[in-house]
């Protein structure tokens, strides 16, 4: 067996299974933070577009601050300072213990916070891009504001936001590598451990690069499918004023 196959063999002798577990952790962490971030981002976009001045200012400040501060700093604040902050908030209520967040929990929270900040702007653009005539038509038919938003504006806004959201997914996928800095054993961390143990870093870091390229490539296939699907009924006809 060639040395490279021996190095990446599955089981106790090689590092293949450790790297695979890391790959799975990377995907899990990315999906979790993306899901939480997108839901929070949609709420934020609704706040930013609402007439309530305070809601607007809060959502606006949120998206400005969390898009300007490096992800690694937010991850570090939540990991090193999160338990202290939560404990000191709970102290007035008679809490005397010690809260400890695992790296995965604080890491996913931090990434979801950053994802939400970007998702706010994507959804905001998408909602604003829906033609006002759609809303007017719904109101003219007597549809309530809430139903208009969720059944008429939002589905169209989602289609427009889809490319932005897909880009955001690719960003989140790559940002998960930052969690290795706080000890989450993702693909990069697993390879780092293997590289330090074997003192042969190049094959390990090449494997990480291949792993991420594989995930990006897989995502891009799914994204192309999704975008084709959302374009049903729109291609060839949009140029002629939407008549089909």
């Amino acid at each position: 067996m060639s040395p490279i196959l021996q190095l990446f063999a599955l089981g106790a002798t090689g590092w293949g299974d450790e790297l695979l577990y890391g790959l799975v952790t990377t995907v899990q962490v990315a999906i979790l933070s993306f899901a939480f971030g997108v839901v929070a981002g949609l709420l934020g976009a609704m706040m930013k577009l609402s007439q309530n001045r305070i809601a607007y200012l809060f959502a606006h400040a949120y998206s400005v601050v969390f898009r300007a501060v490096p992800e690694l700093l937010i991850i570090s604040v939540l990991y090193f300072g999160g338990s202290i902050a939560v404990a000191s908030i709970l102290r007035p209520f008679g809490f005397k213990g010690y809260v400890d967040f695992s790296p995965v929990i604080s890491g996913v929270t931090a990434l979801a916070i950053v994802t939400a900040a970007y998702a706010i702007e994507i959804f905001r653009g998408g909602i604003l891009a829906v033609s006002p005539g759609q809303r007017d038509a719904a109101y003219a038919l007597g549809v309530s504001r809430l139903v208009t938003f969720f059944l008429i504006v939002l589905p169209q806004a989602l289609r427009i936001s889809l490319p932005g959201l897909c880009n955001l997914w690719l960003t989140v996928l790559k940002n998960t590598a930052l969690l290795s800095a706080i000890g989450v054993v993702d693909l990069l961390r697993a390879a780092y451990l293997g590289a330090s143990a074997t003192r042969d870093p190049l094959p390990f870091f090449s494997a990480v690069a291949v792993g991420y390229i594989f995930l990006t490539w897989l995502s891009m296939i799914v994204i192309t499918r999704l975008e084709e699907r959302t374009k049903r009924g729109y291609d060839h006809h949009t140029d002629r004023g939407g008549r089909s």
Partner: protein
Amino acid sequence: MVEIIAAMLPRLLDGAVSTLIVMVTCTILSLPLALAIAVSRLSSHGFLSRAASAYVFVFRGTPALVQLFFVYYGFSMSAFMRETWAWYFFQNAWFCSIFALTLNTAAYQAEIFRGALQVVPSTQIDAAWSLGLSKNMTFWLVRVPEAFRLSLPGYGNELILLLKATSIVSTITILDLLGTAKLIYTETFDPITPLLLAGAIYLVLVWLLQLGLSAVEWWLMPHMRDVLRVKHQRNPHVLTSDQGSSK
């Protein structure tokens, strides 16, 4: 509290200077590289354009942190590097950071420039040719300046992302803004004050960068100044009750 912050601030600002050094060096070095990649992608030379596409795909498909580790640990710890002069380059965390981040941001910038080069109106190029400009002159004097102007918004975003991305160099022992904040944390066992202070400094840096970029946009787009002067509207008609007011 004020004294604690006053004691930390000079050290953090020192770190911010390191952050800016990495950022500015990468910006300067990546510009010609990105332009070269963008031009290769658009060239009719099959191998060149395929190599440039592969470069962009690999560097945009992997995280910057992976690229940094690859360069810093992968190259300096490898036996075959230790015999050559390359080892002196790759043992230095500063050189590795600048090398990796330059290659990374150049891939993103190349895509921005490629898009801009493609949307320069073909009438401009026809006009340049009809005036007798050579192919090279048309490219450098007409197409590139106009493409740079078109790419300004995307390029500005990429520079802000680069400023944020420099924070990863703290993982390979460089005391940039984030690295200094973490060092202060290990000395004082107080993570929240130095890290939040560093976050505030990053916010100020991004704000200053954005101001500078708007100034450049103002300067390079004299014909668009009326549009640039208009502040962004809040567009409050979406979730509001006064549906009649929406245009």
